[in-house]
Every structure is written in C-alpha cells, then in structure tokens.
C-alpha cells in the first residue's frame, strides 16, 4: 500500500510475465498448438507401436523420397534463420535488412509448401494415398496439417512484409515481427520432429 501514490510506470508489464500482450498471447497459443500436434504425433507413435505391420518393412524410405525432403527440411531451417535475421534487423531499425530478410523468408516458406505439393502429387501417382493403410493416413494427416500451418504462416508473413514496406516497424516497436517469428520457428520446430519420425524412422 505504500506505493499508492507512486506514479505507475508501465502497469501492464509490471505484474505480468514481463512480456507484452501479443508475445505472451502467441506463446500461450503455441501451447495449444503443441497439444494439437501431440494429438497427431501421439496417435502416430501409438498406432505405429500397435500395428508395426502397417508400415513398410524397411521403414518409410521405401515409399518416401528422403533426399528431396531433406533438402526441403534444410530450406525450412534456412527460412527460420532469415526470419530471425529479419527480427535482428528490425531491432536495430535496419529497414532495408528487415525487408530483404522478410522477402527471403516468404519465398522459402512458399518454396517449402510447393515442394510438398510436388511430393504429394508424385506419391499419389505412385498409388500412395491417404486411404493407403495407417501409413498413408498418418503421413498425410501430419504433414498436411504441418503444411497448412506453413501456408498460414506464409500468408501472415506476406501481410507483415507489406507492413514492413510501409515502414510500420521501428527499432522501438517491432512486436509484429517478433510475434510472427515465434510462430514461424515453432512450425519449423514441428517439422524437425516430423521429418525425423515420419521420414527417417
């Protein structure tokens, strides 16, 4: 009560988690995303342990193209780096760097989805479809929902890029960049897990 008369400097971070609303909100939302992928990945692990016979004997590589996907994985990792570089540029007010890195991120994100689309087409031509046993079901559901998340990320990123070109972000306020970055890295992180357990194991 002693501080009753004291002017409040920034009340909304003083009692909170020490972060601004949008960033906290994104982290909270990512908590629910973790649980969503838990449902999908958890089901995959359970089904695989319970029905090992539903997968090819020598692992998914009998059907899936590992080299292309490894390259695609690398592409997504690169887009994460460019995202974080955009954030670093924004935090020092480097508008040119921010725009360049954002465009790079958008392009690599879009390229990732495109490669996935090509991969799907080829797999379907080979007869590997979602109704092809548990392998097909889990593969398309997990990678499909990941691809959906990447696509949403790309759309949001285009919006952010447009705002960046309008000079909406400064060294003082670049919350939007950091928040979309968190989402983007999370999607990258999920892919790292998916690549290992869906393609390699």
């Amino acid at each position, binding site marked *: 009560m002693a501080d009753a008369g004291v002017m409040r400097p920034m009340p909304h971070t003083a009692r909170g988690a020490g972060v601004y609303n949008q960033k906290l909100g994104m982290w909270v939302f990512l908590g629910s995303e973790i649980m969503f992928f838990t449902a999908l990945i958890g089901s995959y692990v*359970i089904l695989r342990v319970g029905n090992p016979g539903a997968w090819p004997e020598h692992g998914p590589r009998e059907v899936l193209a590992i080299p292309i996907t490894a390259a695609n994985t690398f592409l997504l990792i690169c887009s994460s780096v460019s995202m974080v570089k955009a954030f670093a540029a924004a935090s020092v007010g480097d508008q040119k760097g921010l725009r360049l890195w954002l465009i790079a991120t958008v392009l690599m994100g879009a390229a990732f989805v495109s490669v996935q689309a090509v991969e799907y087409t080829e797999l379907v031509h080979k007869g590997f479809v979602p*109704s092809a046993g548990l392998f097909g079901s889990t593969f398309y559901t997990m990678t499909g929902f990941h691809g959906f998340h990447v696509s949403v990320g790309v759309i949001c990123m285009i919006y952010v890029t447009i705002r960046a070109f309008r000079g909406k972000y400064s060294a003082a306020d670049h919350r939007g960049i950091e928040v979309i970055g968190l989402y983007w890295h999370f999607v990258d992180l999920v892919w790292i897990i998916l690549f290992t357990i869906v393609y390699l194991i």
Partner: protein
Amino acid sequence: MASIAAPVEHDVGHSHELSFVRKYIFSTDHKIIGIQFLLMSLLFLLIGGILAMLIRWQQGFPGQVLPGGGVFPETMVSDGIILPEFYNSLVTMHGTFMVFFAIMPLLVGVFGNYLIPLKIGAPDMAFPRLNMASFWLAVPAGFLMIAGFFVIGGSAAAGWTSYPPLAETSEYSGVYLGQQLWCVSLIVLGLSSILGATNYITTVINMRAEGMTWFRLPLSIWALFITSILVLLAIPILSGAVIMLLFDQTIGTHFFKSATGLPILWQHLFWFFGHPEVYILILPAMGVVSDIIANGSRKPIFGYHSMVYAIIGIAFLGWVVWGHHMFQSGMNPTLGMSFMISTMVIAVPSAIKTFNWLGTLWRGNIRFHVPMMHACAFVSMFVIGGLSGVYMASTPVDIYIHDTYFIVAHIHYVLFGGSLFAIFGAITFWYPKMFGRMMNPFWGKIHFWLTFIAYNATFFPMHQLGLEGHMRRIYDASRYDFLSGTHGLNVFISISAFVLFASQLIFVLNFILSWFRGAKAGANPWEDTGLEWTTPSPPPHGNWPATPTVYTPPYEFSVPGMAQDYLPQDQSKDMVTAGQPAKGG
C-alpha cells in the same frame, strides 16, 4: 522503450460514435461479447432441454403418441411414436448441446468474458478483436450442429462421445452427413474456445490492475484462469481426434477403423480431452459459487489459499484420470488400477473445497438472496455428485454400474446440480451489473424452489434405475425382464422432468421482463467487495474512467471496527475509517 510494452489502445472516448452494428453485433467490448455469449448459450440450453423432454417422453411413455409429435417429419416421429434412430439422435445431440454449446460457453464464454476484465481492473481483454472472433466462430459452430437435424439421415447418433467405428461408418449408424457436421462443428467450436482461452490467460497474466497480486484475485478469476489453461491444452486434443475421425469418414483414412486401425485410440484421445473437459465444466462454477457464498455469508472465504491450491490440484490431477471412463473397454487392467487410484485422489481437493464452503458459512450472517440460494444448492448437490463419483471410481463397482443410469444420475448431479445451479446463481448475481436492473427476487425464489425440488425428483431416482442395471441410451426398457420393475420409476422421473422444464420458463420470463421492467440497480446492489461493483451498472466502455488500484484481499467482509460490513478491493480499511465514504454503496 515504453511503446513496446504499451497496452492495446482503447478508444474510450469514441464509444458513442460507433454504429449499432459495431456496438452490439460485431462488438469488441468484452461486456457486450459476454452478453452475446449469454443469449446464445441460453438458447442452446433451451434446445438441449427440449431434446431432453423428448427423451423423457420416450422413457416414461414408450410406444405412446407424443403430444405435438406431428410437427416432426416421418423420419423422426412416425404416427406420433418416436423412432429408435431419432431417439439415438436425441441422446447424442442433447449431450453435445449441453456440454459444448450450453454449459461450457455459459461458464467460460459468459463469465470468462464478463468478469475477468471487470474483476482484475482491466479496461478490456488483451485482444478485443480476437474475442469478437471467438464469439463469431461459436455461432456458426452451433448452426452447423443444428443443421444435422435437417440433412438426410438425420443428425449424429453415436452418442456425444462418438465412439468409432459406429461414429464413422454410415452402414453401421445409418447417419450420413450428420456425423460429419458434428465433427466440423466441433472443430470450429474448438478454434473459438482456443482463441478465447488464449485471450483470458494473457489478460489475467498481463492486465491486472495495480495491487491486484495473484493472491488477491477472487476465486472466480482463479477458477476461470485455470479453466482457460485446461481449455487451451485439452481442446486441441479433441480437435486432433475429431479431425482424424472426420478423415476416416470422408477420405478413407484408417485411424479408428476396426480391422486396420485402432478403435480404442479414439477413446483414449477423447477422454484425455474429456476429463479435463469435465473440470472445465465445474471449476468456474466452483469459482462463482465461492464469490457468492462469501458475499451471502458476509465473511471472508474460509481457507482462501487452500481453495486456490485445490483448484490447481484438480487441474493437474484432471490429466491423469481419463482412463476411468474406460475401465470396461478392454484396457490393460494394471493401467485401470493406476487410473482408479488417481481418480480416488482427485476426490480430495473436491472435499477440501466443500468443507471450506461450509467453513465460510460457519459463524456468518447469512443473507438468503436468490444467488445465495443457488450457491447453497450447488454445494449440497455437488456433495451428492462428488460422492456418487466414488462408486464409479471403484473399478469393481464400476463393472456393474458403468453405462447405466447411475452414470446418468452422476453427470447430471455434477453438471445440472453443480454447474447449472451455479450458473443460475451467477446470472442472478451479475444480472444487475450486466443490465443495470435487478431480476425479480420473488419469481427468482419461486424458480429456485421449483427447480430444486423437481431437479432432485428427476435425477435422484436415476441412481436407483442404475442399480437395477438399467442401461443408458436404450430406447425401450420394457424389452428386458430384469427392468420390468423400473417402469413406475421411469414415469415418475419423466413427470418430474416435465415439471423441471416448465419451471425454467419462469426463469426465462424473469430474465426477459427484468431487462425492461426490473428495479433499477445501483453500482453495488449486493454490497460486494469485487472491483466490478466499483463502477456503474452497466459499466461504461473501458469499464472505469481510470483503472482502479487494489489495496485488499478479495473477500474482506465484516472487518472489525468498520461501520459497513464489506470493504471493496479498491479501498483499504484506513481509507474508509478515515472518512472517505465507500464508493458505490
């Protein structure tokens, strides 16, 4: 770097310039959204109630002509007789509407929205537009669910738990599009709930007023906060499972198929979501009841800290008990043992809460206003619902009573006797804050007593039905010799249920008429301590001219040495006794 930390701007001064649509339809004001959720979920509560009446007609009077049955098409009610396939739809949709579209939005959507900013001293939610999106996703989800009744094959009919393979194969269920609409509706509703929960959690963490420390939060806010965490983490599991179910139905995946997949996986996923869901449906009720009981007793809540820890404990334990819904599903019996023990242990925090409520009443100066009556009914009914849970937790007894009316009695004692009484109490309690007028106390009391008596007459005998072995979700019990003795009881239950439903019309009328004709309410009609009572009823856009500062714990009633028996949270005893008049009295 102040701008980074700056809160969302609120155009407090501009509210009068907004058009009708922006102000009342696509509003971003948490109070308007709360009231929108209230109207929507009361409508679904009514729909769920009508479905329940049809169920009770069939149970009490099987094979007899349903009065007014002519309004239904031949595929539902033939020659006035409810058809078995329609009966399965009724059971399914009653459960779905009540759980997902009535109780859950009534507690989380309405009171989460309305109370959180007002009780923590925030001008609005952290993300007002996200809040609006949350409501406007819930509405189409509800319409998608209703749409099931109007498509060929009827609505979903595999129970609100939708166990595959029944839920995913049309040849088995006789339902086509209805089952898919059920899935899509729940996915949309899930998105709405996740957006809402994200908003509530951020708001509670970041937007509390000066002086509103964690242990000065009212228990209703604690409960809503913990509930939001459960929503945030549990709903995505349901979304994931429902998506897999939908894919099984539409694009031929194999997740829950019997030969190639794993039907029991659905049950694990569903109940891994479902048990936290049970606490989503009861924790906020416990929270608002704590507020009302402290107010009615004119005493600080007994054992505030242990109440908080009990809420947190329930939320933690709620994640490791889901298997008790599956004891007879053919699961690993050793796993069943561990689920039984964790389920037994979860009774302890519930017991703590009950005894603390009794401790709050003890040596109080009790005011029997209508919300207090409902709150006491909550405690009394929750005792029954909690104790009957012990029977099911005990695995051997569960062998016998699983999937019988004993379970039906139990869930209704928790969800109707518990949650719904708390909701009636909370609506009556915060009605003056929402609409600036009091609900009629005379009709409130009539409604309470009729509901209380008819409710017990409806659901208490269901325990006995269950003990006779009466299975749930069966269309016609008269086919079984061992149930021949239950017919009289079924008739009694049905008549009580009709009285119960009719009594709710009093509430509906009271709710609507008080909106226009109720007595004008002051800022603090219940002489409560919460921050929401320090601003006019209804509060202006932005809630307070300047955000309040909090000086005291939440339930400072009957502080010795004060003239009035309540101390609002934005004042200290020194301020009041030094001659500053209490605001809003």
